């Protein structure tokens, strides 16, 4: 899933790119409204994060023009403008959500996941991902969730889902780091080994009953990881 981020503040733009890539999204960044419109046309993102107060073209106008071409692509506003009228205007222009600054990572991630679920739900039947079972959990890719047998709902990132999909596909086999990088990080954006290990560690905390003695995702020393079933 590709996300267009339009934010004129560089640190914030880079932080959001970082967070979304951690989540498993491909990102396209724009520094101003005009670049955002150009990138929207060329990259065809799956959803759009827009700042409002941007140079060249402001976020409201970008949203208006995006909606003129595509009424379905989700749009989320990120803004310091916190008056009720600002939110109402943004939503009236067709935005799906309005996140007020300052926001934390968790809040942002939660909102993005909610948007992603809507994106997946809008896809044709043949393009939807099927749920699959890994041990005591059922992974529902299009909802970015897993459901444990005891009913507990576990929130997953896109990358979490991808990792589980790969491990499940190669059930019983050790999946190398390179394969996981290729399949789950994609393209030439290879993180370092530590990043993968940290991600697996965070994933275990979500899905394993006892993260210190993982049952679903085993470590294969020198190779990678394995799902035994």
């Amino acid at each position, binding site marked *: 899933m590709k996300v267009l981020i339009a934010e004129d503040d560089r640190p914030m733009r880079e*932080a959001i790119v970082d967070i979304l890539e951690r989540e498993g999204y491909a990102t396209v960044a724009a520094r101003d409204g005009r670049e955002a419109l150009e990138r929207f046309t060329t990259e065809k993102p799956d959803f759009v994060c827009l700042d409002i107060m941007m140079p060249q073209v402001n976020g409201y106008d970008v949203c208006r023009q995006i909606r003129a071409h595509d009424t379905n692509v989700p749009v989320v506003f990120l803004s310091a*403008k*916190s008056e009720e009228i600002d939110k109402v205007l943004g939503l009236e222009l067709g935005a799906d959500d309005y996140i007020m*600054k300052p*926001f*934390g*990572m*968790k809040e942002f991630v939660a909102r993005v996941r909610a948007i992603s679920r809507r994106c997946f739900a809008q896809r044709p039947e043949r393009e939807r991902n099927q749920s699959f079972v890994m041990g005591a959990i059922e992974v529902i890719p299009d909802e970015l969730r897993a459901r444990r047998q005891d009913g507990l709902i576990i929130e997953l990132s896109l990358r979490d889902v991808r990792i589980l999909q790969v491990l499940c596909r190669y059930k019983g086999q050790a999946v190398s780091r390179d394969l996981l990088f290729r399949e789950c990080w994609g393209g030439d954006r290879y993180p370092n080994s530590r990043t993968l290990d*940290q991600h697996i560690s*965070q994933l275990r905390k979500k899905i394993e009953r006892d993260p210190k003695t993982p049952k679903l995702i085993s470590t294969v020393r020198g190779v990678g990881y394995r799902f035994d079933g």
Partner: protein
Amino acid sequence: MFVRPRQIAIFLCIVLVPLAIAAWLGLKVARDEQQVGRHQFQSLLEGRLRDVDSTIARLIQDIERQFVDQILPTTIDDTRAPALFDELRRLRRTNLMVREVFVLDKEGGLTFPPNSADASPDERSFRQRTDAIWRGRAVLYEPPATASGDERTQVQGPERSPSTSMALIRPGSEATPTLAEQGDTVLALAEHRLYGWISWYWAEGMHLLFWRRTDEGHVIGVEVERIALLARIIAKLPAAGLDDGRVVLIDSRGHPMHQWGPYEPTDGQTAAARSPVTYPLHAWRLLHYASPAQTKAFLASSLRLNLILGFVALAVALLAMAFMFYRDYARRMRDAAQRVNFVTQVSHELKTPLTNIRLYAELLDTELDEDDERGHKRLSVIIAESQRLTRLINNILAFSRNRKNRLEANKSLIHIDDVVASVLEQFAPALAARDIETVFTPGADTPIHSDADAVGQIVANLVSNVEKYAADGKYLRVSTHQSAHSTSVRVSDRGPGIPVTHGDKVFRPFYRVSDKLTDGVTGTGIGLSIARELARLSGGRLSLVPSERGTCFELTLDRTITNDEERA
């Protein structure tokens, strides 16, 4: 700048009310002044008429003098003597002022003109038209008495006894000729006067007789030739001399006998002033007509112009004063708005860097090794402080919106326990850093219709105050409770508490409990004020609950749920 209707109303009152009062007073004064002007104008014209009348009066006195001193004999030995008759007839022929001469004997009988066959037709006509007078059947007029001694101006003349002095009578005064007693004769009048006038009406109008008493007690007199008298009067009256207007001398029937002045009165025009002519011509009138230009010029007095100028000056002064006040007020409001806008603008500007601080701290937190406790702790401080800054900015913005009456509540179905839990989670690192034991007792599991952000901000402000002012108590308890009609959240601590004297004042903006409690503690003083306002907007109230130990605040929200929300 938005101008409130109240400000406009005050501005209008400051300017319009005094102007209205001044205008009313001005109009009143102008009306009174106009009235005075009219009277003065009338007095001016009447003064002119008095001057004319004085001229006529002097002429009458001259005629009297001539008759008394020169024309009429002072002694008559025999009132029936033919020589006397001849003398009297010669007198009639030679004097234009004399129409006819008459003599009364001591018994009041008319001896001349004689009632004989040799009387001329004029003499017979005289006897006929004056018969009623001699027989005491005519209504005779006495000379008018003056109103007072001060008003009487003595006309100087030789051998004039005071009792027979002619007085100049002010026109229009009450000193008009009075009726003599019916039946009185001229002889009776002559008993206490040396001479006098008799005016009576016959046929074509007023006639005049002048009589004098002789030494023997007879009465001799003349019927004045009216035309000659009029000619002498007209000769004395000015033919010109009036710049404007017209003066008209009219007889007893209202017929003009003489007039002068450049102005031609219009039909039906009323005289601006009128005055009776002096006695014995009191049946005549002097009328003064004023042209419109003359009237306007006189009545359009400078006072009106002064009043208008004064009114305009007052209006300008009031407008200038009101404008100065308004400008000063607007400047102060603008400064205050700028200060508020500046604060709002700064708060907005702070949001982006604050977001960056928090995001990068959280990102770094995920990248640290799990066993790097120190690193995680430091990052948690950065995150907590950024959250604190966020709350401060939200408070400032809420305060600013409240001042502009733009603070609003966005209600939806919420779980109070979830909101409180979220706030406590945010404060967990800061509270732990201060060793404050936190106890949360949830008891509101039924959702209610309220504003989650507002409730969160209220609880955050209360917990923040515990962290700032009651940390020494090392204890924070938050409990929620629900009844049939309300949901409440209590936040209590074991700190120094708030003195009873401060009571409700703590909810005032910028109010600080100025004792050791707050010395050295930072804060804006608006947190509780905002919290109370948010509580009100959310359909509840925030109050300070009496507590034996520490401080206890209670947020009470009405428990209102719509039918749809109940079903949901």
